[in-house]
């Protein structure tokens, strides 16, 4: 889960990294009360979880005199369709140079990957492409407690030595916060010292509990319902509802729908051991999507009890047709239950998909 900028900066601040002087406000009025303690030149940053926030109008500069007016303007905006509810008001920095620093989980090496670049404030992918020599990287096993000094020197190259301590400080944040990514872009030098002008922190979803982070995501009603039942659910914009067991099989079912010229309405992985009630809930959830005209159920596995699945589909009592592919234990019983009720049960997942695509054409 991505942590908002102001929270990420607070975490960095606690670790000893210098961050700009700032206040977080939830209304323009709050800024009025805080103004006396703030410097003359300010920058107002909408706290929304979107990429390209600056270009989308989420970051505004203002002098103290017009700051409240500017805040009103920012709170009235939607940044890429997300309403602005919190604004971070910061001092404008006197930047002498911008750098890039990040630490990420590297799937290939299974270690942490440290990246430092002589150019900051822009996309690192772009820097890497245009000026590969400006980007330096180091791979560090997570069982290492600190970043060795030789690695710090290698990363910095000719950049000022005063940037060095930040590398270890950020590595400790990365370790302590179960981060998938900890990024400072830009990391800046100013007359007042080295500072994190922007910060990004992505925490591992599987570690939120031990990090004490409660998730407060903007979910749709259906997404919330799916989460409650423990389904992996992604909404798409087609007409064929999809229920599968296992992420790979469900994804593959979506791909087949596209291959045969149809469009999937969703991805729903019911998980293992799908019993009657679980299947019923999944079918009802997918059927509740207004655009869904037909539903494909593709369940395969040694321990899936087909009679349970059949009962679940039947008891959902929905109006759209359900085309079923079933393979597992008690297959004959499951098939009989469904065929007695007139359900279509082609043998393979490919046939199931073809039937559904025909139906929704």
């Amino acid at each position: 889960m991505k942590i908002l900028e102001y929270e990420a900066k607070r975490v960095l601040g606690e670790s000893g990294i210098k961050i700009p002087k700032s206040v977080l406000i939830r209304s323009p009025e709050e800024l009025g009360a805080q103004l006396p303690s703030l410097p003359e030149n300010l920058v107002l940053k909408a706290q929304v979880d979107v990429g390209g926030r600056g270009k989308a109008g989420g970051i505004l500069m203002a002098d103290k005199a017009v700051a409240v007016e500017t805040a009103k303007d920012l709170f009235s905006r939607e940044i890429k369709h997300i309403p602005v509810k919190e604004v971070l008001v910061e001092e404008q920095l006197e930047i002498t140079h911008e750098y890039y620093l990040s630490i990420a989980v590297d799937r290939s090496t299974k270690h942490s990957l440290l990246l430092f670049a002589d150019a900051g404030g822009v996309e690192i992918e772009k820097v890497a492409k245009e000026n590969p020599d400006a980007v330096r990287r180091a791979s560090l096993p997570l069982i290492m407690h600190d970043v060795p000094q030789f690695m710090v020197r290698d990363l910095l190259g000719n950049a000022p030595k005063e940037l060095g301590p930040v590398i270890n400080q950020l590595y400790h944040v990365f370790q302590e916060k179960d981060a998938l990514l900890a990024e400072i872009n830009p990391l800046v030098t100013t007359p007042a010292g080295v500072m994190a002008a922007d910060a990004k922190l992505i925490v591992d979803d599987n570690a939120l509990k031990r990090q004490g982070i409660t998730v407060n995501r903007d979910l749709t009603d259906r997404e919330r319902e799916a989460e409650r039942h423990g389904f992996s659910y992604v909404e798409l914009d087609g007409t064929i509802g999809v229920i599968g067991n296992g992420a790979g099989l469900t994804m593959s079912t979506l791909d087949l729908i596209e291959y045969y010229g149809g469009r999937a309405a969703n991805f729903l992985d019911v998980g293992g051991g799908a019993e009657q009630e679980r299947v019923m809930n999944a079918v009802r959830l997918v059927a509740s999507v207004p655009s869904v005209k037909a539903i494909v159920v593709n369940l395969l596995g040694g321990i899936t009890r087909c009679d349970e699945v059949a009962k679940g589909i039947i008891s959902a009592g929905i109006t759209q047709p359900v085309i079923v592919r079933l393979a597992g234990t008690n297959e004959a019983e499951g098939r009989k239950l469904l065929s007695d009720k007139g359900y279509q049960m082609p043998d393979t997942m490919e046939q199931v998909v073809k039937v559904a695509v025909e139906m929704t054409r």
Partner: protein
Amino acid sequence: MIFGDKKTGLIVTGATGNQGAFHIALMNEYAKSIGGRGVVAGVTPGKAGQEVHGVPVYNSIRDAMKEHDASASVLFVPAFAAGDSIMESASAGLSLVVAITEHIPVHDTMKAISYAKMNDCAVIGPNCPGLLSPGEVKMGIMPAQLFKRGHIGVISRSGTLTYEIVDELTRAGLGQSTVIGIGGDPVIGQTFTDVLARFSEDHETKAVVIIGEVGGALEEEGAKSAEIPIVAYIAGISAPPEKRMGHAGAIIEGGEGDARSKIERLKAMGVPVASRPSEVPRLIHNLI
């Protein structure tokens, strides 16, 4: 076959939990049907002296190994304790850990894999269905009835999709040497590269199917290293960016790891890529 055979003795950790107990029974049913050793001991701290489907339970892997000859463990412990269990297996001298558990924090996985490597212990998974070598050994949760012994290796990031493709292979008369699920997490122990290296040393295996999905670049890295003929299938061509498709590792991030570019890169390396699971047997026939 790779990673083990009939003579391989297995230890199941998390043996007294629902999943652990259920799959001890299935693994030993399979072992019995083919004359293998199967699960020789279970481990759950604090439950020494109990039995699960006739298998004795110990407090620690070390205790179990004093009484039994085993070389691999299969993990069913809860996510918060799974990293620990991987390290315990490695420390006790096992050469292989199969981590079935899902939702292990990535940092735990990274540390445990580093530690296991220092102890010359290979980790399969986490978040995987394990492996099955038909007629030899089953370590994990794969449904044995779909498999048939033969000369095709299968490596997959998925579970049920693997069964789907194994079913296609078996129906087409293409038996398997070893089928292995390497896991759906972003960081996993054995990668396509590692397993392909083992398959290329295995005289029984003539060709390998790699089943990948969106996220990362492990499929391409594997294909580049392969010294044995391979065929690929990549799931998620219709997956939208930045959405996690069920698996923690199945996400297109920062414009990287999408199925289309993976497929293009594989094809550029000369790897035949199936556009549907049902195409895999034909592509294999073309190769061998």
